[in-house]
């Protein structure tokens, strides 16, 4: 067993290492950023290299409304974080629900956009290079939105059931961090796909 090292002498001074959940989320975000970087680089490299149509100029429409919704959801989840830290549970539930709604609107927008692209413009993942890179990059982001929404919804259900309190603020902040990341990635994807690539 331990020897004199564990001498009961109290350690002088404060010893507070950072919260492990936060560190882990930052690590996950670093890894995810590398994943997205590769897809973004592939998209940028293949802009204009498709041998056949349709081209982005012909079929892409800028999803302004969905973008506004997704980006504002960063604000609403921050308000939710603040509410739970101050133990205002009703405000927390409201802002969390608001965030989920904004995320759902964004996803719905993507669904409508894809439906139009597939059925009206005849663009699928195997049509040309644009289709391949577009659906994989936007789809990768959308799958992250779905994962985030799933976790937020679970949290929302727990909140309604009255199982969430001030003591969970630190953990909720970690989840919010992921959501902020998903929003930040959209800024990059939006710039690359709808501004540079169009």
């Amino acid at each position, binding site marked *: 067993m331990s020897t004199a090292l564990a001498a009961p002498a109290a350690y002088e001074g404060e010893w507070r290492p950072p919260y492990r959940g936060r560190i882990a989320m930052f690590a996950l975000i670093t890894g995810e950023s*590398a994943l997205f970087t590769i897809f973004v680089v592939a998209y940028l*490299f*293949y802009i204009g290299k498709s041998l056949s149509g349709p081209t982005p100029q012909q079929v892409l429409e800028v999803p302004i409304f969905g973008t506004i919704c997704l980006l504002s959801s960063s604000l609403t989840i921050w308000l939710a974080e603040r509410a739970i830290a101050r133990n205002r549970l009703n405000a927390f539930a409201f802002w969390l629900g608001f965030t989920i709604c904004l995320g759902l609107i964004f996803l719905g927008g993507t669904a409508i956009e894809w439906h139009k692209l597939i059925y009206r413009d005849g663009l699928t993942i*195997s049509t040309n*290079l644009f289709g391949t890179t577009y659906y*994989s990059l936007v789809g990768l982001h959308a799958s992250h939105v779905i994962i985030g929404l799933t976790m937020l919804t679970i949290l929302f259900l727990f909140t309604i059931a009255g199982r969430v309190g001030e003591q969970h603020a630190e953990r909720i902040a970690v989840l919010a961090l992921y959501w902020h990341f998903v929003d930040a990635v959209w800024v990059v994807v939006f710039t690359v796909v709808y501004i540079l690539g169009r």
Partner: protein
Amino acid sequence: MSENSLPLAGSIEAASSSGSAGTILEWLHEWVVTVDHKRLGILYIVYAIFFLLVAGAQAIAIRIQLAVPGNHFLSAQAYNRFFTMHGTTMVFLVGMPILFGFANYIVPLQVGARDMAFPRLNAFSFWLTAFGGLFLYYSFIGGGGLYGVGSAPDVGWWAYAPLTARAFSPGHATDYWALALILSGFGTLGTAINIIATVISMRCKGMTMMRLPLFSWLMLVVSGLTLVTITPLTAAQIMLVIDRYLGGHFFDTQAGGSAVVWMHFFWIFGHPEVYVLVLPAFGIANEVIPVFSRKAIFGYPAMVAASVGIAFISLSVWAHHMFTVGMTSFSNTFFVLSTMLVGIPTGIKIFNWLATIWGGKIRFATPMLFCTAFLFQFLLAGLTGIMLAVAPWNWQLHNSYFVVAHFHYVLVGAIVFCIFAAIYYWYPKATGRMLSEKLGKWHFWLFLIGFHVTFDTMHFLGILGMPRSIYTYQPDRGWNTLNMIVSLGGIIQAIAVLIFAFNLVWAYFRGKEAGNDPWDAWTLEWDTTSPPPSYNFAQEPIVRSRRPLWDVKHPEDPDWEYES
């Protein structure tokens, strides 16, 4: 440490204390459901040693095939499958699992924690990695069955496009390769995140970052590097799967795609991967060399800085694998220079290790023998690395056995030697028994001789123009004698590894009792029993210097008086 950072205390206690009582089924059940970092570490290491023997057997089959010209021991098809599986297995199912296994076992002990930051994630990551490996090997029997060698991947561990396209690689061989590695890649990502959180957030009182043992420091750096290394491979493999299953065109040159993009993406992963494997080996040397030289490590802050430096530089050197592809002169120059830059931090490390040994009271126990050989071999591997980094020289030797010799000098001469050192060093901690020193010395000398016979000779084969990845050659090329020597060296290495495997089993039952601290070492893992109890430390340790056990053993001359 904030609120409930530990798994349910009772469940672990019960799992590890019931011990010999109970049936084999119960014993197996305990190992399958365990979330204890020490058990998971052992699972990782046993899993990796199993695949080391498998991939080693593949290497021997390859060498038998190449020993004489015009041989028909393996068919061309089987040969392709064997060298692909040898490379893939050694990197993904041996190298990374064994090093993450050591990290799992040692890091929480070294930082004075009770377990990893996320024990359940830890178990999940291990089983993902394990299923990835089983899935990859299922390719031998799945798909086309056992005719020939089933549908094992045959596209090389780098899986260059367009060879991997549906048209050129029908069947499921390439899919096994991509899907198995995506799966184990997620496991690796989980472990890397876990190690980072453990090192940063689970340190015991007084364990500041500049008092952290260097092995833990290196594992922190490696985990950070893994985050940005494995994910590009996962991304590229997702693209490959999209190409193969959904008719995408990422690497389809007929639709405007590019095969060179695959090469870039693969080596953006592939080169830092070498450092993911070699940095833990440095970490092992950082623990073993001071303990067996009886001196504190020389230049601790420089060692930390050099490790971080290597990690950063390694992210900008990937295209030195692609000088023959035909890049611009600017790209060639950039990648020559950035590759040369790696020599600076690695040089700092070599000098620091030498300075640690210098004037020390050296004990040449087996771990130290392996680390001493590592120093020389890693230096030589670095020198051939600088040769290959020179673009014109590379144009001559690319895809020859010189390249094979160079990277095996790194992977075997440096990494495998350090892994053996680590097993001899920490086996007493994990099992409570010493490995046999006598067998250990046989293992070391035979392996050393076999290694040099094989890989020194391989350099000459490369200079004589023998290309890699060929399944046979004509007798009039002047390669016959050298190939036979290389193959004989392989056999000597195989004998050494079998002695090692025997030693592992023998010592488990008959080895000398180790006690808590058989090497008179200084880091926290030696402060607890061998094997440690499930809770690691009865009381949370408090440290005041980089060598807490030195302070305990020498209260009249503690380290913290000299460390600022």
